[in-house]
């Protein structure tokens, strides 16, 4: 492997002070499941790595005042085991189930998944549809921004060199809302998604209309994760009937700008993306109203 230095901070304050002094060539590393590969493939050439594994205080799942807060060093298996995610949040367990095998989910972190910001991240679409935020911290203070603004493109995030991600947080969803996650890859374990899809749906029982919907994919434009807003607009405020769905599907086909690579062709990805969206939506509706819609 390429040689580099590793700085092992004594605690969080030491880490933040170090980052404030050293800017160039410093790369944060949590549990390294993604970064070690990228170093070996010579995709990144860090001069110094800064080890975050000592920050055990950033490993938690909390629910306070209607807000969920997940620490950046929380692993995917800790999310899976958290009793705070009840049936309404089964989507988180679905992410964990499809994320990878035990030896990956035991170490892969929430912060790593968000900050890697690649098209293969499974947690990102779910955080996008929950309108989650991230808290960033430097020795000079903290700032909070929406995940959607934080992830600016493939492997591009709005993190200053002196900052670390502390946690991600999102508002608890109400009784009329559900979220769902779907993924297709080559195999069930340890695999990068061809496509994944998360849907958040708020459906009024009274009016039988969609009050709010958010749809996100690991790829909406080439390899950039994001929301399918035009498709959302076609559904928001409407009844979920065949006409609405077929309009939404044709908008989705138009809106998604997918690409081909060694994993899957663009055409195949499009078919999978449409099916996953329908499945995720159907799951939300089913859980909310006990009805099945077109799948």
């Amino acid at each position, binding site marked *: 492997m390429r040689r580099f230095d*590793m700085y092992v901070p004594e605690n969080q304050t030491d880490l933040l002070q170090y980052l404030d002094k050293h800017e160039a060539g410093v790369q944060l590393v949590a549990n390294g499941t993604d970064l070690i590969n990228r170093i070996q493939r010579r995709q990144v050439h860090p001069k110094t790595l800064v080890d975050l594994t000592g920050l055990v205080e950033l490993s938690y799942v909390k629910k306070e005042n209607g807000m969920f807060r997940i620490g950046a060093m929380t692993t995917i298996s800790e999310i899976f085991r958290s009793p705070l995610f009840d049936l309404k949040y089964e989507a988180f367990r679905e992410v964990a189930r499809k994320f990878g095998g035990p030896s990956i989910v035991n170490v892969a972190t929430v912060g790593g998944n968000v900050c890697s910001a690649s098209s293969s991240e499974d947690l990102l679409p779910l955080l996008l549809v929950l309108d989650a935020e991230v808290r960033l911290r430097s020795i000079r203070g903290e700032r909070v921004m929406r995940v959607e603004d934080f992830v600016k493109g493939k492997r591009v995030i709005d993190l200053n060199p002196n900052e670390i991600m502390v946690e991600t947080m999102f508002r608890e969803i109400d009784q009329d809302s559900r979220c769902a996650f779907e993924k297709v890859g080559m195999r069930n374990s340890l695999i990068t998604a061809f496509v994944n899809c998360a849907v958040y749906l708020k459906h009024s029982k009274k009016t039988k209309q969609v009050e709010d919907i958010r749809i996100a994919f690991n790829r909406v434009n080439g390899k950039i994760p994001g929301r399918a807003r035009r498709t959302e607009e076609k559904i928001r405020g409407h009844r979920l009937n065949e006409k609405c769905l077929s309009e939404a599907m044709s908008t989705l086909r138009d809106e998604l700008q997918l690409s081909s690579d060694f994993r899957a062709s663009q055409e195949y990805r499009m078919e999978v993306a449409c099916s996953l969206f329908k499945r995720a939506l159907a799951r939300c509706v089913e859980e909310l109203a006990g009805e099945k819609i077109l799948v």
Partner: protein
Amino acid sequence: MSKHLLKFNVNGKDYALIVQSHERLLDILRDKLGLKGVKEGCGTGDCGICAVLMDGKLVNSCLVFAIQARNKKITTIEGVGTPEELHPIQRAFMKWNASQCGYCIPAMILATKNLLDRNPNPTDDDIKWAISGILCRCTGYLKIFEAVKTAVAEIKEAH
């Protein structure tokens, strides 16, 4: 390049070693401690063959920097059972002839241990999930699956 003092416990024994920043846990276990039961497969976290237990949790040792294992408790296959008294999981694998070339077996046994230490009554799906991160190109997994079920029964009986 910076060097670090790595203090950790492997198979019940404390070690203090000098490691370099870029060295992986896998390199240290095999090359410095001579624990050749830890195998390298793909080296990218896809095959799971290099799996060890770190503080009781299954991890791929090719994806852990050595220094990140500081103060941790590592278990490799050398720390499971002894030649005189095999672990029930090892006996079950022998009974079912679940090992062919044998390359994945240390990881399979540790993955099984990782499961049974937490969940003594796994369902079939739990078992499949538990070994899902580890590739075996010989057995077709069926005998491994049956071996795990036998191990579950034996461990339950022993208690």
